[in-house]
């Protein structure tokens, strides 16, 4: 069993509950144990860092310190949480004075940020720790008849100085996962583009234009579904899909899956178990 601390992203506790639930079905099958971090707090969602850089450092030093206390790496399944917490980690590791200031406060809770735990994405755990061969060996229902558009999203790739796992211009980890599960990836220009999530409430029209382009390419390429490692991308591409396509005058639709659901399907769990029926488009 490989053990990890698992960060609870706000969105997975509210709008995309099916993401975390579907992991619970298959984590044991792949020899993984995710210990949920119920004491963890919101990372600040790529906003707190400029609203208050010091609170941003404190909150995320604490999130990481909770994992360090258990001696585990911190696994995140939302791109923006991943980028945000890794950004904080980089800041803390590079700024001893900030680390000291934060640790002086964290003492109250018996915590200390040391910088010993890595902060990684669920996708990286699957591809790098479990490994493609082991995943292949566990597949019971290969996705062999599916043409799949891999939508990586921004914050698992950029800024590459913070993320660094995939080449941001030609990412491949998600493509590899799809293929290990027996699926067929399609060439997809928008794979490393943006979904528009972060301006949905501030510049809705622009955000929906951004999303519509990504959806349109997948639809035109006759993909059976889009898969994304990010619940925020999922929220735009699924939840806002009809609005985005309407704005772009496109009369069509396409399902969007979380990676946790795609893995679940290939390991023999049903769409119903995995919560795929909860999606707006299905």
């Amino acid at each position, binding site marked *: 069993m490989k053990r990890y601390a698992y960060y609870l992203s*706000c*969105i997975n*506790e*509210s*709008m*995309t509950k099916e993401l975390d639930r579907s992991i619970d079905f298959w984590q044991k099958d792949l020899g993984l144990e995710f210990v949920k971090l*119920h*004491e*963890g*707090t*919101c990372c*600040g*969602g790529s*906003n*707190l860092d*400029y*609203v*208050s*850089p*010091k*609170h941003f450092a*404190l*909150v995320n030093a*604490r999130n990481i310190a909770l994992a360090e206390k258990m001696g585990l790496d911190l696994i995140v399944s939302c791109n*923006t949480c991943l980028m945000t917490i890794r950004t904080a980690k980089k800041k803390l590791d590079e700024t001893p004075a900030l680390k000291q*200031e934060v640790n002086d*406060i964290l003492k*109250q*809770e018996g915590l200390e940020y040391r910088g010993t735990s890595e902060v990684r994405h669920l996708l990286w755990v699957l591809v790098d720790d479990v490994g493609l061969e082991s995943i292949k060996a566990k597949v019971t229902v290969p996705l062999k008849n599916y043409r799949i558009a891999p939508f990586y999203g*921004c*914050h698992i*790739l*950029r*800024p*590459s100085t913070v993320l660094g796992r995939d080449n*941001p*211009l*030609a990412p491949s980890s998600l493509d590899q996962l799809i293929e290990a599960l027996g699926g067929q990836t399609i060439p997809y*220009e928008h794979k490393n*583009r*943006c979904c*528009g*999530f*972060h*301006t949905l*409430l*501030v*510049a809705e*029209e*622009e*955000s929906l*234009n*951004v999303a519509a*382009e990504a959806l349109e390419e997948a639809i035109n390429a006759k993909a059976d579904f889009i898969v994304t490692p990010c619940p925020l991308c999922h929220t735009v591409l699924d*939840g*806002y899909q009809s*609005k985005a396509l309407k704005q772009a005058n496109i009369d069509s639709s396409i399902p969007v899956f979380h990676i946790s659901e795609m893995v679940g399907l290939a390991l023999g769990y049903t769409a119903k178990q995995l919560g795929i029926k*909860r*999606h*707006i488009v299905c």
Partner: protein
Amino acid sequence: MTETIDQHQEGKRDVTFRVFRFNPQVDSKPYFDDYTISAERGITVLRSLNYIKEHVDATLSFRAFCQAGICGSCSMRVNGISKLACTSQVWEELDKCREPGIIKVEPLRSMPMIKDLIVDMDPLVDKMKRYANWIESTMPLDEMGKKEFLVSEEEFHRYDKATDCILCASCVSECSILRANKEYVSPAVLLKSYRMNVDSRDSIHDIRLAELVKDHGVWDCTHCYRCQESCVKSIPIMEAIHAIREDALECRGPKDTSGAKHAEAFMEDIEKKGKLVEATLPIRTNGMIWTLRNLLPMAMKMIVKRRTPPPPPLVKSAKGIKIFRAMFREMTEHVKQDHQKSHKK
């Protein structure tokens, strides 16, 4: 196959440049021309284009000047990515071709086309003007030339990196929001505004900031980091964008614009619950009327699917929230002290 490998080792091989062509005066739509030339290892994309223009097709148009990554005029998309042709090695580009041996060359995106690889920079220049991206000196006219402007090293470091910008517009071409709306301020313009706003010699910070927080300004950036990733001078553009936002929150207050309200909500919720209260975020950002008009139909669908975020009373606080809150507030005291210190200075 062996022949190509041999050629590769010799450091000379045939390379095809698939170049975007368009002359709005005669062509009804753009097309591509293929030029195959024998290229040596070490040659740049710009040198190849120069060779094509001199020896193959004199009608091919592109901009270039310094050939050394300084002037910013040769920016174009090579194999889909906006960059400088004069610093892009053909040999490196060959590894990135979608079709083996064919390097695709296209003009920058999101800017009006003039001819072939030349785009119109005027809209960008106009935006630089709209956001007043120059210094209006704080020194009275009669003292000019008589007194020195002293700039501390600390201040210099604040804009050192931003002044590396060569206005090539690669970041502009890669911007997600500009692609969605041509009115958007653009990353290079934001970077320049930041640079001016942190300069102690400048007197129009407030005017500039007032313009930046309007529609199509700094709050419309969607944090995609494409600009930063494509910057040919590796400038951390997002740090500049974040700094403008931080400045706007401080100078104009968190209730100033929907963008500011949205950002501030994260701070509020984390202090209160340790979790984001998503259900009320649209209302707190844009008010009740906007929310009902824009989100009601979608909310209905989400209710059916039980995807709606829980209402505030049902958002469970993070475990151990009491001690977390105390620590959060202690940090608030630290921040207050920092402010006092910096204002004394």
